[in-house]
């Protein structure tokens, strides 16, 4: 077996205890429900007998250890329980709403990278100039901004004052029909259907929430790019390349930037975690029908199965994403497996 595939297998093996830990914590969160879960699931009109019946049906009369195995069994079958508000299973609710959240998150991350990486590179190549200072101010201001507040400020400026943005209510203005469901990503679905008008309408709805999230994630990406570029530029191989008379463009992009990209990609994993958290707030501000606003609605009415399912889904999503990043890293970086 090649050292590279061994490394990838090792990385997958490392993720297993984390996934198990996530399941245990989410089980504990489920069991820590305030009050008696059986009485809660039975509803306010239930009497003693029906509560006891439900307790038995839910397996709550068994020991905690046995309950854990039932819980894991349910998870394996993809059963996260039933939401009290929608009446659907939590799994189908989450699956229906996940594309909206992912579309928002991915567009925001793309936007953020498109601004932060050039900014970081510029700051690193011109340390001490106004670009560098601008980068530092943006970085500190960016991490200080509460996303929910940025979102509201953007709505006020671009919707109320300038009138440029559509009303901040969901993924598509009500005069448009949502495009035929293929991927669940409106931008992709509308493009596939060849419906330019809907595509533009969906993009217009997306710009403000995506900008809000992007502003929040700008800081860590720009900071990391700057630091990684600075350390790459001071490396010996850059000195050698300069001495060999290579052009500055070739040195900057061909040598330094490619090496600096690796820590930046790792940071993206962490930034994705922030974004998933911030998503909840941004979705609430823009009435975005994703899993974040689903969780908030569930929290308000104490629909615990939905909240726990959401927390577990987010954690698993994040673990899988980090795994993918690490494996991509192993495939891209030719040095891995050679040491």
């Amino acid at each position, binding site marked *: 077996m090649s050292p590279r595939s061994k490394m990838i297998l090792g990385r997958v093996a490392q993720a297993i*205890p984390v996934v198990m830990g996530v399941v245990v914590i989410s089980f504990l969160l*489920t069991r820590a*429900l305030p009050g008696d879960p059986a009485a809660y699931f039975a509803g306010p009109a239930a009497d003693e007998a029906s509560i006891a019946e439900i307790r038995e049906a839910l397996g709550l009369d068994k020991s905690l250890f046995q309950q854990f195995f039932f819980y894991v069994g349910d998870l394996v079958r993809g059963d996260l329980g039933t939401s009290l508000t929608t009446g659907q299973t939590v799994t189908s609710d989450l699956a229906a709403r996940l594309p909206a959240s992912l579309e928002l998150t991915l567009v925001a991350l793309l936007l953020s990278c498109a601004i932060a990486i050039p900014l970081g590179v510029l700051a690193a190549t011109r340390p001490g100039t106004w670009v560098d200072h601008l980068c530092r101010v943006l970085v500190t201001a960016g991490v*200080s901004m509460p996303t929910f507040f940025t979102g509201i400020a953007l709505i*006020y400026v671009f919707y109320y004052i300038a009138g440029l943005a559509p009303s901040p209510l969901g993924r598509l203005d009500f005069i448009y029909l949502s495009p035929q469901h293929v991927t669940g990503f409106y931008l992709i679905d509308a493009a596939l259907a060849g419906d330019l008008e809907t595509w533009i309408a969906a993009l217009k709805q997306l710009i403000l929430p995506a900008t809000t999230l992007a502003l929040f994630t700008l800081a860590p990406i720009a900071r990391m790019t700057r630091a990684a570029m600075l350390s790459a530029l001071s490396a010996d191989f850059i000195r050698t390349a300069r001495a060999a008379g290579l052009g500055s463009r070739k040195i900057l992009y061909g040598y330094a930037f490619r090496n600096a990209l690796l820590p930046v990609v790792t940071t993206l994993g962490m930034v994705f975690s922030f974004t998933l958290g911030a998503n*909840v707030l941004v979705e*609430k501000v823009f009435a975005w029908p994703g899993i974040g606003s689903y969780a908030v609605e569930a929290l308000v009415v104490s629909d615990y199965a939905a909240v726990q399912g959401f927390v577990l889904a987010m954690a698993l999503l994040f673990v899988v994403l980090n795994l993918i990043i690490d494996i991509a890293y192993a495939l891209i970086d030719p040095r891995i497996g050679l040491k």
Partner: protein
Amino acid sequence: MMAGMTAPHPSRTAGQKNDTTLGHIVYVLKDNPVTMLAFAMLAFFMGCALFGPLLVPYDPLATNAARALEAPSWDHWFGTDNLGRDVFSRVVIATRLDLTISVAAVALSFVIGSILGSITGYWGGWLDAVLNRLLDTIMAFPLFVLAMGVVAALGNTIENIIYATAIINIPFYARLVRAEVNIRRNAGFAQAAKLAGNSDLRVLAVHIFPNALPPMMVQVSLNLGWAILNAAGLSFIGLGVRPPTPEWGIMVAEGANFIVSGEWWMAVFPGLWLMLAVFTFNLLGDGLRDIVDPRKRT
């Protein structure tokens, strides 16, 4: 703390006389007006938290239907909300609650993280392995989402917001202390202290742990900012603090309903105030990093 600081850093600036910690701080601050500004802003927020209730012009809970939704004026600097309450008074009063939540949460995670980190860093072994897996697991959750889950499970109260915020911050402290303790557990000064007849616990607590304090101070300052954002975010989505209690997150949430009809002051002022508080702690963290570790100065 000072004795601890001098032990492991074989005096970098040995040539200079009068090289006390205080002298160093004054020297760095003179060089760095931004950090001075951060300290001044911190003093301002502390003043608001301590004396806010004595200073504000209106009762933060007193409604006045006749003067609802008024734009900022001399009477009401930040305007009035939909119930005619003075936004300025509410914003200032909320300082105490928001700072209390974040300070309590950070203090909790500081103490728990220090204990966990010290034990695992000093003794290592299976305890270390178990704790590392546990911390990995906590970090595997998007932290704000985990905080939501914890509050949902424990119940919707202010104390539980504090616990949730503390839990998501513990890994940062435990990791930091573990690393600092681990590299020093066999250092010369630690062995000397042990040979002099000190118990393991005493060597750990009195000789090794204080070395972790300077980097932890930086972490504390940055964390206070995150903790405020976290608590305000949770109350923004309706967890923890309940209306009519003045709190920045709730006030922004209430103001959000009026922003689309142009009453901007209800959301903007508490939001800006919150941002300024977080900004202060972030600046302070960067400044403290300069004082603690001159090599990381950017």
